[in-house]
Protein backbone atom coordinates (compact mmCIF):
# COMPACT_ATOMS: atom_id res chain seq x y z
CA UNK A 1 0.00 0.00 0.00
CA UNK A 2 1.17 3.57 -0.63
CA UNK A 3 2.09 6.00 2.18
CA UNK A 4 -0.74 7.87 3.93
CA UNK A 5 -3.24 5.14 3.05
CA UNK A 6 -4.73 5.49 6.54
CA UNK A 7 -6.19 8.83 5.38
CA UNK A 8 -8.51 6.85 3.10
CA UNK A 9 -10.11 5.18 6.10
CA UNK A 10 -10.64 8.57 7.75
CA UNK A 11 -12.20 10.29 4.71
CA UNK A 12 -14.37 7.37 3.59
CA UNK A 13 -15.69 7.20 7.15
CA UNK A 14 -17.79 10.29 6.37
CA UNK A 15 -19.66 8.55 3.52
CA UNK A 16 -23.24 7.74 4.46
CA UNK A 17 -23.29 10.17 7.41
CA UNK A 18 -24.64 13.27 5.58
CA UNK A 19 -26.89 12.34 2.61
CA UNK A 20 -26.75 15.84 1.10
CA UNK A 21 -22.93 15.75 1.09
CA UNK A 22 -22.99 12.30 -0.53
CA UNK A 23 -25.35 13.61 -3.20
CA UNK A 24 -23.04 16.56 -3.91
CA UNK A 25 -20.04 14.22 -4.11
CA UNK A 26 -21.91 11.94 -6.56
CA UNK A 27 -22.14 14.94 -8.89
CA UNK A 28 -18.57 16.15 -8.35
CA UNK A 29 -16.93 12.74 -8.67
CA UNK A 30 -18.71 12.04 -11.97
CA UNK A 31 -16.63 11.35 -15.09
CA UNK A 32 -18.65 14.05 -16.84
CA UNK A 33 -19.51 17.02 -14.61
CA UNK A 34 -16.21 18.75 -13.79
CA UNK A 35 -14.46 17.89 -17.11
CA UNK A 36 -17.35 19.34 -19.12
CA UNK A 37 -17.51 22.48 -16.97
CA UNK A 38 -13.74 22.99 -17.31
CA UNK A 39 -13.91 22.62 -21.10
CA UNK A 40 -16.91 24.96 -21.35
CA UNK A 41 -15.00 27.62 -19.41
CA UNK A 42 -12.14 27.15 -21.88
CA UNK A 43 -14.62 27.56 -24.75
CA UNK A 44 -15.99 30.74 -23.19
CA UNK A 45 -12.48 32.10 -22.79
CA UNK A 46 -11.67 31.26 -26.41
CA UNK A 47 -14.60 33.31 -27.71
CA UNK A 48 -15.50 35.79 -25.06
CA UNK A 49 -13.26 38.87 -25.17
CA UNK A 50 -14.26 41.92 -27.25
CA UNK A 51 -10.67 43.01 -27.86
CA UNK A 52 -9.00 41.17 -30.73
CA UNK A 53 -5.48 41.10 -29.31
CA UNK A 54 -6.68 40.04 -25.86
CA UNK A 55 -8.86 37.32 -27.39
CA UNK A 56 -5.87 35.93 -29.26
CA UNK A 57 -3.84 35.97 -26.03
CA UNK A 58 -6.57 33.92 -24.31
CA UNK A 59 -6.84 31.59 -27.29
CA UNK A 60 -3.13 30.86 -26.94
CA UNK A 61 -3.67 30.10 -23.23
CA UNK A 62 -6.49 27.70 -24.15
CA UNK A 63 -4.22 25.99 -26.70
CA UNK A 64 -1.47 25.67 -24.07
CA UNK A 65 -3.97 24.18 -21.62
CA UNK A 66 -5.32 21.75 -24.24
CA UNK A 67 -1.81 20.53 -25.07
CA UNK A 68 -1.08 20.30 -21.33
CA UNK A 69 -4.15 18.09 -20.88
CA UNK A 70 -3.01 15.77 -23.67
CA UNK A 71 0.59 15.49 -22.49
CA UNK A 72 -0.34 14.99 -18.83
CA UNK A 73 -2.73 12.17 -19.83
CA UNK A 74 0.15 10.61 -21.77
CA UNK A 75 2.53 10.92 -18.78
CA UNK A 76 -0.08 9.27 -16.54
CA UNK A 77 -0.54 6.45 -19.06
CA UNK A 78 3.23 5.80 -19.10
CA UNK A 79 3.56 5.93 -15.30
CA UNK A 80 0.57 3.61 -14.91
CA UNK A 81 2.56 0.89 -16.65
CA UNK A 82 5.62 1.20 -14.40
CA UNK A 83 4.20 2.21 -11.02
CA UNK A 84 1.34 0.05 -9.95
CA UNK A 85 -0.56 -0.53 -6.75
CA UNK A 86 -4.15 -1.54 -6.19
CA UNK A 87 -7.16 0.69 -5.76
CA UNK A 88 -8.09 1.26 -2.08
CA UNK A 89 -10.99 -1.21 -2.37
CA UNK A 90 -8.67 -3.96 -3.64
CA UNK A 91 -5.85 -3.86 -1.06
CA UNK A 92 -5.07 -6.64 1.42
CA UNK A 93 -5.67 -4.46 4.50
CA UNK A 94 -9.24 -5.35 5.54
CA UNK A 95 -10.03 -2.01 7.22
CA UNK A 96 -8.96 0.08 4.22
CA UNK A 97 -10.56 -2.31 1.74
CA UNK A 98 -13.97 -2.45 3.41
CA UNK A 99 -14.17 1.25 4.13
CA UNK A 100 -13.21 2.16 0.55
CA UNK A 101 -15.52 -0.47 -0.99
CA UNK A 102 -18.50 0.83 0.97
CA UNK A 103 -17.69 4.45 -0.02
CA UNK A 104 -17.09 3.68 -3.69
CA UNK A 105 -20.29 1.64 -4.00
CA UNK A 106 -22.30 4.42 -2.33
CA UNK A 107 -20.85 7.36 -4.29
CA UNK A 108 -19.35 6.09 -7.55
CA UNK A 109 -18.52 2.68 -9.01
CA UNK A 110 -15.51 0.39 -8.70
CA UNK A 111 -13.03 1.39 -11.44
CA UNK A 112 -10.34 -1.16 -12.26
CA UNK A 113 -7.83 0.88 -14.23
CA UNK A 114 -4.49 1.74 -12.53
CA UNK A 115 -4.73 4.13 -9.60
CA UNK A 116 -1.38 5.97 -9.49
CA UNK A 117 -1.17 8.70 -10.58
CA UNK A 118 -4.76 9.91 -10.85
CA UNK A 119 -5.63 10.81 -14.43
CA UNK A 120 -8.48 13.07 -13.29
CA UNK A 121 -6.14 15.09 -11.05
CA UNK A 122 -3.45 15.32 -13.73
CA UNK A 123 -5.66 16.57 -16.57
CA UNK A 124 -7.73 18.97 -14.47
CA UNK A 125 -4.66 20.56 -12.85
CA UNK A 126 -2.90 20.75 -16.23
CA UNK A 127 -5.91 22.62 -17.65
CA UNK A 128 -6.05 24.94 -14.64
CA UNK A 129 -2.34 25.73 -14.83
CA UNK A 130 -2.43 26.46 -18.58
CA UNK A 131 -5.42 28.77 -18.18
CA UNK A 132 -4.10 30.42 -15.01
CA UNK A 133 -0.99 31.55 -16.88
CA UNK A 134 -3.24 33.39 -19.35
CA UNK A 135 -6.13 34.51 -17.17
CA UNK A 136 -5.81 34.52 -13.38
CA UNK A 137 -9.56 34.66 -12.62
CA UNK A 138 -10.56 31.82 -14.96
CA UNK A 139 -7.49 29.87 -13.80
CA UNK A 140 -8.52 30.25 -10.15
CA UNK A 141 -11.99 28.90 -10.96
CA UNK A 142 -10.42 25.96 -12.79
CA UNK A 143 -8.05 25.23 -9.88
CA UNK A 144 -11.07 25.23 -7.55
CA UNK A 145 -12.94 22.82 -9.85
CA UNK A 146 -9.85 20.61 -10.14
CA UNK A 147 -9.56 20.55 -6.35
CA UNK A 148 -13.26 19.64 -5.97
CA UNK A 149 -13.02 16.83 -8.52
CA UNK A 150 -9.87 15.49 -6.89
CA UNK A 151 -11.32 15.74 -3.39
CA UNK A 152 -14.52 13.95 -4.49
CA UNK A 153 -12.41 11.06 -5.81
CA UNK A 154 -10.62 10.82 -2.45
CA UNK A 155 -13.96 11.01 -0.59
CA UNK A 156 -15.41 8.23 -2.78
CA UNK A 157 -12.52 5.92 -1.84
CA UNK A 158 -11.39 5.26 -5.40
CA UNK A 159 -7.94 6.84 -4.97
CA UNK A 160 -5.35 7.09 -2.24
CA UNK A 161 -4.23 10.60 -1.27
CA UNK A 162 -0.84 9.94 -2.89
CA UNK A 163 -2.49 9.07 -6.24
CA UNK A 164 -4.26 12.42 -6.29
CA UNK A 165 -1.33 14.50 -5.05
CA UNK A 166 0.91 12.80 -7.63
CA UNK A 167 -1.62 13.43 -10.40
CA UNK A 168 -2.04 17.08 -9.42
CA UNK A 169 1.74 17.58 -9.35
CA UNK A 170 2.12 16.02 -12.80
CA UNK A 171 -0.69 18.26 -14.06
CA UNK A 172 0.83 21.47 -12.70
CA UNK A 173 4.36 20.66 -13.90
CA UNK A 174 3.13 19.58 -17.35
CA UNK A 175 0.92 22.68 -17.64
CA UNK A 176 3.85 24.94 -16.76
CA UNK A 177 6.26 23.18 -19.10
CA UNK A 178 3.82 23.25 -22.00
CA UNK A 179 2.98 26.95 -21.60
CA UNK A 180 6.44 28.25 -20.78
CA UNK A 181 8.82 25.90 -22.61
CA UNK A 182 7.19 23.65 -25.20
CA UNK A 183 4.60 25.86 -26.90
CA UNK A 184 6.84 28.92 -27.41
CA UNK A 185 9.38 26.60 -29.07
CA UNK A 186 6.80 25.18 -31.47
CA UNK A 187 6.26 28.57 -33.12
CA UNK A 188 5.13 29.23 -35.81
CA UNK A 189 2.79 26.20 -35.41
CA UNK A 190 0.39 27.79 -32.84
CA UNK A 191 0.28 30.97 -34.96
CA UNK A 192 -0.58 28.92 -38.05
CA UNK A 193 -3.31 27.09 -36.14
CA UNK A 194 -4.80 30.44 -35.12
CA UNK A 195 -4.54 31.71 -38.69
CA UNK A 196 -6.43 28.65 -39.93
CA UNK A 197 -8.98 29.20 -37.18
CA UNK A 198 -9.43 32.81 -38.27
CA UNK A 199 -10.06 31.70 -41.85
CA UNK A 200 -12.77 29.34 -40.53
CA UNK A 201 -14.30 32.07 -38.29
CA UNK A 202 -13.45 30.13 -35.14
CA UNK A 203 -10.52 32.19 -33.87
Amino acid at each position, binding site marked *: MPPLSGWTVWITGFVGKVPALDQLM*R*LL*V*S*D*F*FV*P*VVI*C*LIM*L*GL*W*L*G*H*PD*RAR*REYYQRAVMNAAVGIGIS*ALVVRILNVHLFWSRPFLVDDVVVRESATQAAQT*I*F*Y*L*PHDPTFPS*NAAAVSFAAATGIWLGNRAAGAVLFFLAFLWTFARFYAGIHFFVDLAGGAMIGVVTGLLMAKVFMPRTEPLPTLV*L*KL*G*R*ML*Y*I*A
Partner: protein
Amino acid sequence: MAQDYFLLVFLSAVGVIQIAAVHARLEGLWFFRHAKVQYAFGILAILGAFGWFFTGSNRNLQPNVEGAQQLGLFLAAIVTAYVATAILSSIIQARVGTKPEHPAEGKQEDLGMETLKTTTVLGGILSSLRRERKDRV
Protein backbone atom coordinates in the same frame (compact mmCIF):
# COMPACT_ATOMS: atom_id res chain seq x y z
CA MET B 1 -24.91 7.21 -22.70
CA ALA B 2 -22.73 8.40 -25.62
CA GLN B 3 -25.70 10.13 -27.28
CA ASP B 4 -26.71 11.73 -23.98
CA TYR B 5 -23.17 12.97 -23.44
CA PHE B 6 -23.03 14.42 -26.95
CA LEU B 7 -26.33 16.22 -26.34
CA LEU B 8 -25.14 17.55 -22.96
CA VAL B 9 -22.04 19.09 -24.50
CA PHE B 10 -23.86 20.30 -27.63
CA LEU B 11 -26.63 22.12 -25.74
CA SER B 12 -24.37 23.61 -23.08
CA ALA B 13 -21.83 24.69 -25.75
CA VAL B 14 -24.60 26.49 -27.65
CA GLY B 15 -25.42 28.28 -24.38
CA VAL B 16 -21.78 29.20 -23.72
CA ILE B 17 -21.32 30.45 -27.30
CA GLN B 18 -24.40 32.69 -26.96
CA ILE B 19 -23.17 34.19 -23.67
CA ALA B 20 -19.58 34.59 -24.94
CA ALA B 21 -20.89 36.23 -28.14
CA VAL B 22 -22.58 38.91 -26.02
CA HIS B 23 -19.37 39.54 -24.05
CA ALA B 24 -17.26 39.74 -27.20
CA ARG B 25 -19.95 41.73 -29.05
CA LEU B 26 -19.90 39.16 -31.86
CA GLU B 27 -23.39 40.10 -32.99
CA GLY B 28 -23.13 37.86 -36.03
CA LEU B 29 -23.55 34.87 -33.71
CA TRP B 30 -26.55 36.22 -31.81
CA PHE B 31 -29.90 34.45 -31.93
CA PHE B 32 -31.78 37.41 -30.41
CA ARG B 33 -31.66 41.19 -30.75
CA HIS B 34 -31.25 41.95 -27.05
CA ALA B 35 -28.25 41.05 -24.94
CA LYS B 36 -30.40 40.21 -21.90
CA VAL B 37 -32.43 37.69 -23.90
CA GLN B 38 -29.17 36.22 -25.17
CA TYR B 39 -27.90 35.80 -21.61
CA ALA B 40 -31.18 34.25 -20.49
CA PHE B 41 -31.17 31.82 -23.42
CA GLY B 42 -27.53 30.87 -22.79
CA ILE B 43 -28.04 30.27 -19.08
CA LEU B 44 -31.22 28.27 -19.70
CA ALA B 45 -29.45 26.12 -22.31
CA ILE B 46 -26.57 25.36 -19.92
CA LEU B 47 -28.74 24.72 -16.84
CA GLY B 48 -31.28 22.77 -18.88
CA ALA B 49 -28.62 20.52 -20.38
CA PHE B 50 -26.91 19.85 -17.04
CA GLY B 51 -30.21 19.44 -15.19
CA TRP B 52 -31.50 16.94 -17.77
CA PHE B 53 -28.23 14.97 -17.92
CA PHE B 54 -27.51 14.69 -14.21
CA THR B 55 -31.01 14.35 -12.76
CA GLY B 56 -32.44 12.06 -15.44
CA SER B 57 -30.54 8.91 -14.45
CA ASN B 58 -27.51 7.68 -12.54
CA ARG B 59 -24.40 8.67 -14.51
CA ASN B 60 -21.91 7.09 -12.09
CA LEU B 61 -21.84 3.66 -13.68
CA GLN B 62 -18.97 1.57 -15.08
CA PRO B 63 -18.05 3.71 -18.09
CA ASN B 64 -19.37 2.72 -21.46
CA VAL B 65 -17.96 6.02 -22.73
CA GLU B 66 -14.17 5.62 -22.41
CA GLY B 67 -11.70 8.51 -22.17
CA ALA B 68 -10.72 8.67 -25.84
CA GLN B 69 -14.34 8.30 -26.98
CA GLN B 70 -15.34 10.99 -24.48
CA LEU B 71 -12.78 13.38 -25.98
CA GLY B 72 -13.93 12.59 -29.53
CA LEU B 73 -17.58 13.12 -28.61
CA PHE B 74 -16.73 16.36 -26.83
CA LEU B 75 -14.87 17.81 -29.81
CA ALA B 76 -17.58 16.68 -32.23
CA ALA B 77 -20.27 18.25 -30.05
CA ILE B 78 -18.37 21.56 -29.75
CA VAL B 79 -17.80 21.76 -33.51
CA THR B 80 -21.45 20.85 -34.20
CA ALA B 81 -22.60 23.48 -31.70
CA TYR B 82 -20.50 26.19 -33.33
CA VAL B 83 -21.57 25.24 -36.86
CA ALA B 84 -25.24 25.05 -35.80
CA THR B 85 -24.94 28.46 -34.09
CA ALA B 86 -23.30 29.98 -37.18
CA ILE B 87 -25.97 28.62 -39.55
CA LEU B 88 -28.92 29.38 -37.28
CA SER B 89 -27.80 32.92 -36.44
CA SER B 90 -27.15 33.63 -40.14
CA ILE B 91 -30.64 32.40 -41.10
CA ILE B 92 -32.38 34.23 -38.23
CA GLN B 93 -30.60 37.51 -38.93
CA ALA B 94 -31.20 37.24 -42.69
CA ARG B 95 -34.92 36.56 -42.19
CA VAL B 96 -35.56 39.08 -39.45
CA GLY B 97 -33.27 41.62 -41.05
CA THR B 98 -31.87 42.63 -37.68
CA LYS B 99 -28.44 43.48 -38.99
CA PRO B 100 -27.21 45.06 -42.15
CA GLU B 101 -24.30 43.15 -43.65
CA HIS B 102 -21.23 45.34 -43.30
CA PRO B 103 -18.26 43.02 -43.43
CA ALA B 104 -15.04 44.44 -42.03
CA GLU B 105 -12.33 45.35 -44.47
CA GLY B 106 -9.26 43.18 -44.64
CA LYS B 107 -8.26 39.58 -45.12
CA GLN B 108 -10.27 36.92 -43.29
CA GLU B 109 -7.04 35.21 -42.12
CA ASP B 110 -6.19 38.43 -40.24
CA LEU B 111 -9.68 39.39 -39.06
CA GLY B 112 -11.03 36.02 -37.93
CA MET B 113 -14.00 36.29 -35.56
CA GLU B 114 -13.68 40.07 -35.60
CA THR B 115 -15.76 39.91 -38.81
CA LEU B 116 -18.66 38.58 -36.72
CA LYS B 117 -19.02 41.97 -35.00
CA THR B 118 -20.56 43.35 -38.17
CA THR B 119 -21.85 40.37 -40.11
CA THR B 120 -22.90 36.76 -39.75
CA VAL B 121 -20.72 33.78 -40.67
CA LEU B 122 -22.63 33.10 -43.89
CA GLY B 123 -22.64 36.83 -44.69
CA GLY B 124 -18.88 36.93 -44.15
CA ILE B 125 -18.29 33.89 -46.36
CA LEU B 126 -20.45 35.36 -49.13
CA SER B 127 -18.70 38.72 -49.03
CA SER B 128 -15.28 37.01 -49.03
CA LEU B 129 -16.31 35.07 -52.13
CA ARG B 130 -17.60 38.26 -53.78
CA ARG B 131 -14.37 40.08 -52.95
CA GLU B 132 -12.29 37.22 -54.36
CA ARG B 133 -14.32 37.23 -57.59
CA LYS B 134 -13.92 40.99 -57.88
CA ASP B 135 -10.14 40.71 -57.35
CA ARG B 136 -9.93 38.06 -60.08
CA VAL B 137 -11.83 40.28 -62.56
